[in-house]
């Protein structure tokens, strides 16, 4: 090991005593890295959960026309024949008014084809009882759990649903009666927006509510495992009629995903300042070290050390602090992420705000998903900034003349 690395290690971790200055410097970097990892993982978790929720309830691709698909059977056949497509199911959806016990709600009614929907969306995972999907008929619905609670509806109860066609009928002085549906199951996805405002019914029921006839609003598509959805989208758009367009879930939610990415980037940039402040702490403790060890630096020169090696000794100290702080910070960050839900629910319980948490956070649990690219960026940025902090002390140490350094008081 070169002497400057050996001495850097010994000065940071001297034998026989607690390395107080080193511990403070490492702690600063540790906290910065841990916060960066926690925040980027939680932000990534929101994006990941939303992706999972979309893909698991709507598939990876949405094939739709400007208004509606008038000949869904033909388009469905074309979609199913496309390479890379595992399954496809038609849908119709729109806002309705739901009434139960005199209480109103305005959820989205999602009409699904019972025979094919399970091949595209894993709805069965979220539905209670699980058989509710196959039990679904044109007179029954599955209600999202929070919506059912807000309307005071239980499985077996009946609800009335008014479609927007009511307005058209009223304009023509026609009498329009609401459709009555029996609730055969409830749905809990874990996303506040979906859990508070979704009703699943059959495709035929949705077509009837919206006066679609045989038309549908679109077709959800599931691609085969390992197949790139964007390639399938390009393939479909090349073969489908011009009035029909396939879009990936990322395109459909592009604005939302961009906002999420922007939030994540801004958070990363802002939180990086914690590491930068920690780097200033590293710099100041190394500058103090240069002053405290001026005569030792002079001795090193007398022993034959070159100025560049003296500089490397201090740069190495900053690098070691950066590496140690980052390593501990990564561990601390993942440790906190592992107990994040206990922490969040514990705090919410203490403040008796668990329902508020669920309502505003969208998810019942705090999501977290760490991308390898985020982790690498955090680690590299933290070590780089910490090492930069060593440059000024290193420069000052290298500039000391041995004769003057040895004479210093």
């Amino acid at each position: 090991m070169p002497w400057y690395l050996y001495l850097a290690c010994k000065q940071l971790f001297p034998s026989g005593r607690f390395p107080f200055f080193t511990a403070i410097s490492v702690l600063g970097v540790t906290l910065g890295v841990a916060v960066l990892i926690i925040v980027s993982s939680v932000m990534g978790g929101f994006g990941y959960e939303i992706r999972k929720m979309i893909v698991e309830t709507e598939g990876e691709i949405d094939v739709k026309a400007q208004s509606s698909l008038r000949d869904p059977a033909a388009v469905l056949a074309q979609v199913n024949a496309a390479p890379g497509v595992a399954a496809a199911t038609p849908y119709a959806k729109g806002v309705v008014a739901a009434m139960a016990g005199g209480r109103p709600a305005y959820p989205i009614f999602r009409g699904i084809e019972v025979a094919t929907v399970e091949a595209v969306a894993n709805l069965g995972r979220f539905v209670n009882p699980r058989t509710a999907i196959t039990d679904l008929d044109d007179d029954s619905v599955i209600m999202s759990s929070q919506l059912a609670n807000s309307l005071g509806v239980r499985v077996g109860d009946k609800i009335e649903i008014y479609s927007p066609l009511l307005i058209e009928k009223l304009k023509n002085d026609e009498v329009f009666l609401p459709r009555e549906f029996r609730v055969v199951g409830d749905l809990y996805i874990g996303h506040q927006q979906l859990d508070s405002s979704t009703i699943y019914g059959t495709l035929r029921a949705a077509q009837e509510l919206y006066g679609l006839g045989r038309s549908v609003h679109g077709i959800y598509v599931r691609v085969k495992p390992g197949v790139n959805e964007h390639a399938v989208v390009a393939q479909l758009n090349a073969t489908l009629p011009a009035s029909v367009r396939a879009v990936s879930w990322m395109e459909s939610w592009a604005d939302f995903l961009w906002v999420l990415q922007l939030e994540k980037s801004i958070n990363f940039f802002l939180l990086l300042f914690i590491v930068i402040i920690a780097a200033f702490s590293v710099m100041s403790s190394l500058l103090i070290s240069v002053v405290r060890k001026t005569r030792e630096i002079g001795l090193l020169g007398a022993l034959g050390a070159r100025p560049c090696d003296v500089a490397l000794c201090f740069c190495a100290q900053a690098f070691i602090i950066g590496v140690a702080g980052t390593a501990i910070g990564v561990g601390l960050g993942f440790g906190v992420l592992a107990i994040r839900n206990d922490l969040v629910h514990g705090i919410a319980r203490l403040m008796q705000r668990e329902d508020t948490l669920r309502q505003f956070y969208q998810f019942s649990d705090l999501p977290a998903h760490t991308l390898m690219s985020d982790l690498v960026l955090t680690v590299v940025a933290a070590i780089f900034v910490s090492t930069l902090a060593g440059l000024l002390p290193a420069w000052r140490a290298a500039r000391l003349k041995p004769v003057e350094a040895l004479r210093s008081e």
Partner: protein
Amino acid sequence: MSNASPLISNGPVALEASGIRKSYLSGDRRIEVLRGVDVAIRAGESVSIRGESGSGKSTLLNLLAGLDAPDAGALAWAGEPAHAKRRALFLGMVFQSFYLIPEIDALANVLMAARMVRAPGVAERARAKELIARVGLAERATHLPAQLSGGERQRVAVARALMNSPKLLLADEPTGNLDEHTGDAVIELLLSLCRETQTALVLVTHNAVYAQKTNRQLFLREGMLSHG
């Protein structure tokens, strides 16, 4: 009063300085500290330099060590121009204030001189242990400098100075911070080790008794070296 002092030893010339001049600016006044110093020292020879405080002894020693550059004059180590790159192997230094690295133990401090040249191997470690034993600190090799007395620290510094088997040892007031008894022991150690290893020794001291123990006694006065 130029000095071409007689050479006691018959060995090769370890150090040769000629016409060394050095001045400093003090405010707007230039002070000439050294006014043409000539000195030659052979391997195995010990030379003492005495002088009043502020006469330029330490300045001369730093110049001889190549730690500072003279305004004029030439310096040669073993017949070749002095250069900082050769310092680690050619010479060792002992200071009044020991200058041990506080974070590492006595043995590691000795080994530090070897680290400046290359990563120490088995041979270097064995030599460091041998030197520590030679200065009488075998039992205290793993002690930190803070756990050693002043005399022990200076002995560690002497061992460190000899670690790379230098041709020249420069000692700047090595007993300045020691009591008389310990100082005597350190001087005896320096002289005997230099004799054994045929290392040239330049001893800067205020103490006439220690100076008398060297082969040649020089006196620095008005920027020139003369016989004491």
